């Protein structure tokens, strides 16, 4: 991105003042290097978002942003229904409520090393992953309805998890006002064999070791100590969410003109929050969020079963579960008053600061855990939401590293076997159905997640708590 077009407002904050048809400014978070490294399309898309009706305060761009579909990935935008605000399917994405959850284990690396390969094999066997994989759970019509309305709460009610997991999940495991009736038959069909599956691409299940602590107090509140083993799961709403995204993106593209929306980019397609289409999308999208929460809850149960078998002394409470592709109705302070806003986070993590009433008691003093996934060889991070993030970007932070190289370029650089061997030499055991998939997801194909996390910390969006390195990685 050409930074001469931006106004610098701090070491990690850059502005594009409102001009032309922009209703609000664009605010970009990131170091000079990160912002310069962003595609020019990110600026263009963030400016387009700033022109949408009912947008409040600013169109925000996180430090890991890259070119997306209408909205940049790493984009945050809030809309007020009372001011003609809109909801955008592209502003949420195809993988509705894609997110990360982190399980503690009570184990140290020495507990894992003697069984590392056995545990990797058992996790690979016990957690369905990859294109065409099928879960063991089949839902009839009533069960599908209940899952879409109930989310992780429904899963726990069916013994896929512990009651305590729910307060460690955004929305207490169940987003309200989901409307399963607005979920098409095709979306349900696409999900029928996919409950409890991990997916493919950048989705993963990792056993990780805490290798660095940045904030002893917050780490203690999160139950993280140096050398601790945790399990990180990155996955979304599977076929159901993909189908809902597909169907509503098309409906919004086709009806934008009828709603009087003049869009510079067809992909910005959206619908007024008060319109029938807007309400239908919100109902279906919330059902897809519940599907993602239920899916990650079932995966959690499968992981616990494997650990109980291989490392029986493991105790596996949930640290937290975050979603990074959502639109949620939230209450925020704007100009000294509370307003109810529909906050889109496309490739961005909610990051509530200390004291927020939505956080469970045990986490309230430290702030919300913000889980940032790396890729195989690269580290992952746990951060904590800050008080100032509310004023900076509606309590939002980054979500991951983002790719630095396309899948094609990665294939030209690496072979799957070589990547697996290189990682094995670093003590990382990888299991995947696809050698090509491993090459496409090679650690070198991703940006430096540390630079992204440092920028988020420096900007005040979230504070670094701990760094983690993978020990076992299961890829689809």
């Amino acid at each position, binding site marked *: 991105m050409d930074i001469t077009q931006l106004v610098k407002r701090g070491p990690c904050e850059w502005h594009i003042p409102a001009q032309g048809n922009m209703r609000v400014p664009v605010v970009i978070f990131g170091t000079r290097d990160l912002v310069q490294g962003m595609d020019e399309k990110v600026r263009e898309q963030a400016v387009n978002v700033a022109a949408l009706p009912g947008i409040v305060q600013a169109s925000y761009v996180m430090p890991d942003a890259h070119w997306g*579909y209408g909205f940049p990935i790493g984009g945050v935008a809030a809309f007020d229904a009372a001011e003609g605000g809109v909801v955008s399917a592209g502003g949420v994405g195809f993988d509705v409520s894609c997110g990360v959850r982190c399980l503690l284990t009570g184990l140290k690396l020495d507990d894992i090393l003697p069984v590392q390969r056995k545990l990797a094999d058992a996790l690979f066997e016990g957690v369905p992953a990859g294109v065409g994989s099928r879960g063991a759970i089949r839902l009839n019509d009533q069960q599908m309805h209940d899952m879409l309305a109930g989310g992780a709460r429904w899963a726990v009610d069916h013994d896929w998890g512990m009651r305590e997991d729910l307060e460690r999940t955004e929305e207490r495991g169940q987003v309200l006002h989901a409307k399963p009736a607005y979920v098409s038959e*095709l979306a349900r069909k696409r999900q029928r064999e996919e409950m409890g599956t991990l997916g493919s691409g950048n989705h993963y299940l990792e056993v990780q070791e805490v290798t660095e602590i940045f904030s002893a107090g917050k780490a203690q509140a999160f139950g993280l100590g140096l050398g601790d083993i945790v399990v990180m799961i990155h996955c979304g709403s599977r076929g159901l969410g993909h189908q809902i995204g597909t169907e509503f993106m098309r409906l919004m593209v086709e009806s934008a003109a009828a709603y009087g929306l003049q869009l510079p980019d067809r992909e910005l397609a959206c619908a007024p929050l008060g319109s029938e289409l807007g309400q239908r999308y919100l109902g279906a999208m919330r059902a897809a969020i519940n599907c993602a929460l239920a899916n990650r809850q079932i995966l959690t149960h499968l992981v616990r079963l494997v650990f109980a078998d291989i490392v029986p002394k493991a105790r596996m409470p949930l640290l937290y579960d975050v979603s990074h592709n959502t639109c949620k109705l939230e209450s925020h302070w704007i100009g000294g008053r509370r307003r109810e806003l529909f906050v889109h986070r496309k490739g961005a993590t909610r990051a509530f600061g200390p004291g927020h009433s939505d956080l469970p008691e045990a986490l309230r003093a430290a702030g919300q855990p913000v889980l940032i996934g790396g890729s195989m060889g690269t580290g992952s991070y746990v951060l904590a939401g800050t008080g100032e993030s509310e004023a900076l970007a509606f309590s939002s932070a980054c979500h991951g590293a983002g*790719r630095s190289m396309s899948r094609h370029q990665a294939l030209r650089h690496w072979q799957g076997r070589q990547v697996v061997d290189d990682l094995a030499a670093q003590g990382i055991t990888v299991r995947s159905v696809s050698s090509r998939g491993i090459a496409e997801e090679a650690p070198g194909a991703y940006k430096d997640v540390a630079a992204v996390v440092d920028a988020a910390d420096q900007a005040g969006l979230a504070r670094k708590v701990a760094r983690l390195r993978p020990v076992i990685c299961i890829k*689809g």
Partner: protein
Amino acid sequence: MNTASCVPAGDVAHPRPAPAIASATRWEHFDHGADIGVRGWGPSKAAAFEQAALALTAVVTDPSRVAQRDTVNIVCEADDDELLLAAWLNAVITEMSVRRMLFARFQVELRGRQLSGVATGERVSPLRHQPAVEVKGATYTALRVERCTDGSWLAQTVVDV
């Protein structure tokens, strides 16, 4: 991003002849950040749609590894060529997902704004196909359906993986 090596026949401002290779029936991928672009060329619009779908299969696996065992009929319609291409690719993605199939061959017939297609392939075999990634949906990013100056057709968009 690469731009298509083809300009619309109606673009008189900067007419460039399409390269000879553009008239061939073929597909390719183009880069789009985290995701991937699928692009098909053919002597007709329908052929370009078929090739774009083949490029879609190639996102997941090498199409030559997919046996032509079973056929699936696909119909869709849309208000313009570009929306029709997105609808076609999304219909193929849905069939891949619901039937857990990969397709090696596509036949497309276009009648106005309606498309009738046949996709031929087989069930996914992780061992044989080594599927790299599942496709979540076809986007409207870099979406183009155009006639080249040599009369051939180009059809492309970015798919989310």
